[in-house]
């Protein structure tokens, strides 16, 4: 049996652990129905994050509609780009059970 495949957006945010709670609250407010969290370490323009005193970074992934993806990207850029270590990007995703995510 074939399941119908729906196109969604996968938004990934990699940022400082200290922002995790605030970001997750906002994601839900903006319309995300769920998310996946992973501990992350790495290096970028703000240096090696793994050794920071605050602990490892966090990677947040969420499957959302295109509108919600845009809202999340805007919020992250406006609120956190200036002062925090943060990466956000969006990819196309093909999922089954598409109604779960919107």
């Amino acid at each position, binding site marked *: 049996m074939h399941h119908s495949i729906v196109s969604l957006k996968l938004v990934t945010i990699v940022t400082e652990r200290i922002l995790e709670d*605030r970001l997750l609250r906002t994601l839900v407010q903006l319309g995300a129905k769920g998310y996946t969290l992973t501990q992350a370490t790495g290096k970028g323009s703000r240096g090696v994050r793994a*050794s920071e005193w605050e602990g490892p970074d966090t990677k947040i992934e969420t499957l959302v509609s295109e509108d919600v993806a845009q809202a999340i990207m805007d919020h992250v850029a406006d609120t956190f780009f*200036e*002062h*925090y270590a943060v990466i956000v990007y969006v990819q196309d995703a093909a999922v089954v059970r598409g109604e779960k995510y919107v």
Partner: protein
Amino acid sequence: MENLDVLAANLLSPVILAFVLGVIAALVRSDLKLPPALYNGLSIYLLLAIGLKGGVELSKTPLSVFIGPALLTLFLGLITPIIAYNILRRLGRMDRVNSAAIAAHYGSVSAVTFIVAITFGTMTGRAPEGFMPALVAILEVPAIVVALMIAFMRDGRAGSWKDALHEVLSGRSVILLVGGLVIGALVGPEGFEPVEPFFYSGFQGALVLFLLEMGIVAAGRLRDLKKVGFFLVAFGILVPILHGVLTIWLAQFTSLSVAGAAVLAAMVSSASYIAAPAAVRIALPEANPTFYLTGALGITFPFNVTLGIPLYYALAEWLIG
């Protein structure tokens, strides 16, 4: 003991030697590192242990004995961030936000410095009052609030004041300390007896392991010393001494013993590196973490645990003893 013997006894204690070992391990780029879960577990154990012991002692202490030291501690928690802020602004010519961020750290307290100060007193036969952990709880929060208020008032900024306050009040050090105090006070000496061996026997060993990790962390900050400049290095040593002297001078007007005054001086002079950084990162994101973390962890913590604590005991002995 003569002061130099006391200093040598402190430098050669297992706690300080473990700290030095951690520093050396980091300097030779050893792969030694405490797993984060162990480090977190140890900090929970240490904070809850001192909270419980303090609570049990508090249940035996009349309010009339406790109220003087408690009010003094609250006063010091309110005044030290203002002193630190003004020194940073006027002498250091630092900007407002970074001055307030650093002031929050130097007004608040490092629980581990407090524990090392207690251990040092006990080791040299001068046990401080049992209710001292309650003073740590009093000292932790006000300074952070005062320093953030300075930054917010001067700039007329909105910011996430609420998030920052939540971060301090719900942080593990406040929950464990205040929670431990309440539990200890509720159960009293008899109720505490069954769990006492666990929190008593393992305490010094846990502290040795914790200081090993602190050495590794502090050495990691040493690499940033060049970035923070001479002023902040001098600030990280002289302001703690200033706060310590102020504390001991005021403590003579309360009922505090020599050891109690010395431990309070170590607390007031110490710089927070758990509660304050989290709150400051949220409330003052544009402040440079290199300044406050290097100051608190790389300069003031090593100074206090090696030389500062014996100095405060000597000063308290001289002024009050």
